[in-house]
Each structure stands twice: as C-alpha cells, then as structure tokens.
C-alpha cells in the first residue's frame, strides 16, 4: 500500500513507542510514591498517534502538541533523559526545569512545543506553516490536538485560514474519546470530527489510531500534499485514553469494559504482531530490553540531577535599560 513504512521504519516507531510506554509507566509508579509534582498527563495506549505521525516528519519540520505530548516529544526525536529531567524540574531538563511536562520544547528537533491552553496548538502550527510558505522552506508544520481542542473557537479560525491560504500544515486529531472527564458525545453533536475538514476544503482521513502503520500511511499522504504546496490536511486517529485524565484524576467516569477492550488492542500489541511476521522474536525482544534499559537509565540520571537556581528574567524587566 502507498506510503507504508518500511520494516526498519516500523521497528523504529515500535522502539519509540516502547520508550514512551516505559516513560509513562515509570511516571505512574513514581506518582504513587508521591515523587512527582503537579498534574502529569499520560498518553499510554495512544503512543501510535504521536510517534507514528511525527515519524513522517523531517528535522526541519515543526510540531506543536498538547498537554499530553510525551509521544510527540520522543517521536520527533528528543532523547528520553532531557524529557524526564524536565518533568522532574531539573536543571538538565530540555527547558532547564522552567517548562514542566506540559510545555516541553526542543527547537532544534522542531518541537515548539507542548501547550496546555487547549486549542492553542492549532493556530500555533498554522502560524509556523504561514512562515514556511512565505520563506519557501519546503517544510511542513504539524499540530497534534485532542477531540476537546477541536471544539474551541480558535480551531475554526485557524483551519479556515489554513484552507484559504493552502498552508503546509497537517492537523492530526488524537481522538481519545474524552475532553477532560467529559465524553466526546457530550462535547459535539457529531462523532467523526474530521467531517468538518470539508468546510475548509481540506482532505481528511479517519484511521485506527492504535495502528501505527495506518497512522503513518495517512499522515504521509497529507504531509506529501502539504509539502507540494497543495494545502493542509487532517487525519483523525481514533484511540482511547486508558489512564485517567492526569495524575490528579479522581476517576469514576470511564467504563472498565471500554478500558479493557481498548487495552486488548494496545498499539504495542498491534505493532508487535505485525512486526513478528517480518522479523524474529529475538530481534523484538532485544529492542524491548534495550528500550526498557534506556528509560531506566534516563530516570536514574534525571532523579539525581541538580535543581535549577532562580534568577530574574531581564527580558521581562519593565525598567530594563536594554529595552
């Protein structure tokens, strides 16, 4: 099929999904021990969206993501240690501990960045695409956003301009069935949110968001079009948030049978099964052990890294003579 990832590409996607899974599970365990600070939004069970979508991108392409962005950070090429160190507010974190887990950025890798104002990533990526069009860079901007974000007013404004001006931006909708605690049927009268793409004259495709290959294929098609100057596209990835909204979620509103059904179709299970037909058990086991070791090492290092020291930001000083 067109744009199917090669076995090597799929193996790399699988490896990065494993990194994200171990990252999330380790965070969950440390939260239970009271060793995390502030709410943390895990994306376990949704790794295929963030990892496979960004696997399509080149280094010069940019991505804006959400408060639940760990898969995008790792998918777009950030190493595990600076992400973990940022989550624990360390001086060695990707942003020196200033950003925290929701707002991570790595400009060199094209991650600019996590965003915790729901919906704000959509015009953010659209603005990057405008700049790419004006400069003629041939790059593409991507926005990974949620079903909750799709209901914001700014989503409409940004997508309208993306369609109107044929901007090189790809909108990846991570439809995990919930806003914060509110199920999507209480947020929108339509089930498939990507039907709205028609109103912006952009193509859209709905895919199984737990199938990394399906996500990769659909996103590649949209990225190629955008790169050719044919305008924006949307991919709606159907998935499910198997963990709570965040570590401060008090629960009680997700159906256990839904969680179990989606867990049975976990993206790691789907990819492993597909890959087993291509490579041997031994190779997969090797990748799995290495991923676990990489994440364990990153946590061990990050947790003993130093905390940053406070200083006033001169750029914000209203009395600064530099202004």
């Amino acid at each position, binding site marked *: 099929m067109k744009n199917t990832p090669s076995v090597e590409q799929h193996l790399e996607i699988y490896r990065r999904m494993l990194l994200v899974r171990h990252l999330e599970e380790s965070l969950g365990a440390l939260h239970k021990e009271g060793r995390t600070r502030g709410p943390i939004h895990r994306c376990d069970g949704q790794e295929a969206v963030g990892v496979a979508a960004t696997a399509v991108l080149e280094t010069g392409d940019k991505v804006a993501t959400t408060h639940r962005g760990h898969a995008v950070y790792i998918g777009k090429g950030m190493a595990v240690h600076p992400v973990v160190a940022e989550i624990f507010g360390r001086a060695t974190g990707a942003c020196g501990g*200033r*950003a925290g887990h929701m*707002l991570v950025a790595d400009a060199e890798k094209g991650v600019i960045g996590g965003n915790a104002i729901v919906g704000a990533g959509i015009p953010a990526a659209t603005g990057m695409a405008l700049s790419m069009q004006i400069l003629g860079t041939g790059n593409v901007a991507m926005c990974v956003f949620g079903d909750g974000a799709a*209901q914001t007013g700014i989503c409409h404004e940004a997508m309208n301009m993306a369609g109107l001006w044929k901007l090189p931006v790809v909108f990846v909708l991570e439809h995990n069935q919930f*806003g*914060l605690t509110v199920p999507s049927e*209480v947020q929108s009268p339509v089930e498939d949110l990507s039907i709205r793409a028609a109103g912006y004259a952009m193509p859209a495709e709905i895919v199984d968001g737990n199938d990394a290959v399906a996500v990769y294929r659909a996103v590649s098609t949209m990225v190629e079009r955008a790169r050719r100057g044919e305008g924006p596209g949307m991919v709606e990835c159907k998935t499910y948030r198997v963990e709570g909204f965040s570590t401060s979620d008090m629960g009680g509103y997700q159906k256990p049978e839904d969680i179990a059904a989606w867990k049975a179709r976990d993206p790691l299970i789907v990819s492993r099964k597909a890959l087993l037909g291509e490579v041997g058990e031994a190779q997969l086991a090797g990748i799995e052990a290495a991923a676990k070791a990489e994440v364990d090492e990153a946590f061990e290092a990050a947790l003993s890294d130093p905390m940053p020291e406070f200083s006033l*930001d001169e750029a*914000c000083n*209203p009395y600064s003579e530099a202004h």
Partner: protein
Amino acid sequence: MAMMRYAEALNAALREEMQADPSVFLFGEDIGRYGGVFKVTKGLMEEFGETRVRDTPISEQALTAMAVTAAMTGTRPVLEIMYADFVPLTLDALVNQASIYNYIWNGQVKMPFVLRTQGGGGAGAGAQHSKALDSMLAHIPGIKVVAPSTPADAKGMLKAAIRDDQPVVFLEHKLLYNTRGEVPDGDETVPLGKAATMREGSDISIFATSKMVVEALKAADLLAADGVSAEIVDLRSLRPLDVNAIVASISKTHHAVVVNEGWRFCGYAAELSATIMDHAFDELDAPVARATLPDMPIPYSEPLETAMLPSAEKIRTAALKTLK
C-alpha cells in the same frame, strides 16, 4: 456554625441559591458529571438536572459571551472557568460586552451573572496554570471582582454575587479549596465591597486578598517575633474597594504593605498603593511597600516557583524594610 472546607462552602452556596431561585443555572467544563475538577459543583447535576447544570465543550470565549446575554434575558448564570489562566480567552465578553451595556444602554438591561474561576501558584502546575490575573480583571469598569479567603466568606459572598444584578468575577484559589473554617448556618450573605480585619495591630497594616491573606497572617506571626504588631486587613473585594477600611487602618499604624499574587508592573498592588496616596498620604510615615510576583512567567520547577511567589517571609521582609 458548621466546620467546612472552602470548596464545600462554595458548594453549599450554589445549592442554596439554586434551590431558592429557579433562574440560577450553572455551566462550565467538567462541572456536571464529574462535579468540577476541584469538586465545587459536586452532586449538583444529580440534584438539579442536566438543564440547570451543564457540562460544556471547551469554549471559554463563547461561554462567557453567552453568560452575558443569558443574564440580560432573565436567567442568573454562574459560569465556571476552570483556571484563571483561561480568563484571557473570556476577555472580549467582559471588556467589550458585559462592562459597557448597562451604561451605554442607559440602564435598560441587567447582567446578573457570576464568572467563578480559580488562580494562583504553588501547585507545580506550570506557566499556563498558575497565574492569579486578578489585576487584569479588576481593571475593567462595570464588573465587580471579589476574592474571599475563608470558607465563611466564600459562601456568603458567592450567595451575594449570585443575587447581584451586576456581573461579578468570583476568584477562588486552588490552594484554598481544602482549607477549613466555621461557616454560619442558614441564609447568610456577606456584602461585596467590604473589607474585614483579620488581626488587629498597631505598627503596620498589611492589605491582601485570597490566599495572600493566609500568607499575611503567617507574616504577622513572624513579625510579632520581630517585635512588630501587624494589622491584617482582608480586602475581600478588589472592586468595589473598601477605601474607608484602608484609611482607618493606616490612620492607626501609619505604615502599609500591599500584597498581590499577580505581577508587579501595572498590578493591583500598584493600584492599592496609589489609592493610599490619594486618600491617606498625610497618615503615612513611610512609603508603601509592595509584595508581589516578579514580572516574569511562573516556572514549573519547585525551587524556581517557590522563589517567585509572594510568601509570608517576603511580606515580612517588605514590612521590615518600610518600618526601618
């Protein structure tokens, strides 16, 4: 009297006002089925149904604009905006809509809506979930802005806010929801625009609202150990402002510290300081000191965030400096 958490006191106020007046309704993100992310609206959808307690999509801009016109046409909406950091999304409805109509339409419409939100730092929630932004709101003419610090005031002032015919922004604090205090039984309201003296003192007056009142009270203990008698005045309402209470306290102590969890430049502390100059300049023995957030974004990492937030220790330092 009953011992209650701040969040429970708010919940009781909402329940009582909804029982008393069928035109009161609640809407906001995650407030219904889940009962609100801080559980302020817990149990209200079960009690009053899905028409009067609505879970909404993530649509702050439209929700606020709708609250304005729903209020003009016979209902008393109470809108929850989950974090004060999202208030900038509501500003057109407040600044260009709600604040102007009563005046430009020459009193033809009323706008009895309440926008409840919570702000403030100290919870490790990062640069987009930790701001107070009360100064920005208090800047708008035609809108009342209140920020109670105790469960009793939370209940009494929310009831008063719901009954008020002007728009009221009701500011809560994420670190106050679990604080406890005695709350009077029954239908007690607390008027909007009246300060409360939380602790009498003779050497210096400290003016604060919301969580900063808690810090100011701790600062008063620290100052007592320094041999300084501090008077703590909880303004409770940022707008309208109880100027008489401010002048009365300063006439006694002749020194003042103004505390605000927001940014310093063009902030509420600057306004208080100017108000004191306007009304009590002759009573002052020293310049007014400010304890505020420095002018920069709020970082995530604990030592960075802690270093920034106004605290009892920083209020004490400001007080000692102006007393010197």
